């Protein structure tokens, strides 16, 4: 198909889709309307179980099974990345040269790493109280580690990041979620039902029954998943060189820039 025909096809299809979508928008309940039956019920259920953050309650209590699905997608995506980005037989590892980063940047990186890690873990731990939770805090904590690559060099990052340990952590966290679910099945009523633990005092760390546990499991899974994911990409971009590919050192003199093709 030549580009011209394709553009026509895209234009026709896009126009049709746009017309349908706009027609649908005009029939939607108006923005800011007052009728949210599911939302009201979710808030009610969340308050009944002493979970201050209703969104966490929906994710880890009322729709915990759905979150299990999301976790599985995450796990599978990371697995796919690891397989796709693994080192093949015709590739070898070239050790990256130590980078010479300006001193204030390096100091900033060393300062921000623990602070960002603490913030990430704070966001995970208070997921059932204030805005945040395992998904957000996990990403923040994992990003914190990679400040070391930005502010120093890849070798420094590799020293604090044994990838194998994070792969194990990823798997363990996923199983922890499943085990909590099965525990609900054995000790209580149903898979992932929040009937096992006392609901605690409203707006404290231990409130919400199993919500904090599932939250922590997701936080650990996301953090480990992101670390493993970035490890694959960093290895490919920085270390792994295949035969014939010009080495970093040879190619460094001329950094081509592809101006908007």
């Amino acid at each position, binding site marked *: 198909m030549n580009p011209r025909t394709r553009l026509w096809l895209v234009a026709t299809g896009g126009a049709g889709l746009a017309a349908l979508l706009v027609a649908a928008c005009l029939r939607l309940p108006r923005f800011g309307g007052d009728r949210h039956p599911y939302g009201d019920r979710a808030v009610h259920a969340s308050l009944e179980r002493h979970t201050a953050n209703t969104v966490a309650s929906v994710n880890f209590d009322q729709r915990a099974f759905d979150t299990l699905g999301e976790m599985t997608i995450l796990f599978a995506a990371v697995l796919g990345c690891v397989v796709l980005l693994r080192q093949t037989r015709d590739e070898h590892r070239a050790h990256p040269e130590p980078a010479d980063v300006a001193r204030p940047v*390096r100091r900033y*990186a*060393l300062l921000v*790493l*623990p*602070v960002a*890690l*603490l*913030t990430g*873990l*704070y966001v995970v*731990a*208070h997921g059932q109280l*204030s805005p945040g939770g395992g998904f957000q805090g996990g990403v923040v904590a994992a990003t*914190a*580690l990679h400040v*070391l690559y930005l*502010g*120093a060099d890849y*070798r*420094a*990052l590799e*020293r*604090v990041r044994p990838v194998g340990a994070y792969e194990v952590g990823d798997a363990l966290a996923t199983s922890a979620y499943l085990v909590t679910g099965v525990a609900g099945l054995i000790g209580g009523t149903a898979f992932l039902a929040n009937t096992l633990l006392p609901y605690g005092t409203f*707006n*404290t*760390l*231990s409130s919400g029954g199993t919500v904090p546990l599932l939250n922590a499991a997701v936080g650990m899974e996301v953090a480990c998943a992101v670390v493993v994911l970035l490890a694959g990409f960093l290895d490919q971009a920085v270390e792994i060189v295949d035969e014939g590919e010009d080495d970093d050192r040879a190619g460094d003199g001329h950094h081509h820039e592809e101006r908007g093709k």
Partner: protein
Amino acid sequence: MNRRRTLLAVVEVAAWWAALGALWLVFVTVVDPLELAVGAGVAGVAALAARGARRAVAGW
């Protein structure tokens, strides 16, 4: 010299731990024993990470 080095390491981690623990207390809204315990643990993890990062950058 080994004991001196251990002492320095302990001091470094303890200093980070205290600073990060104080930061945790700034972040949280309600202070209760469980909150303090979790904060102490998390600050410990972050302090170890801080020391690990500094050593990784400086070379072992």
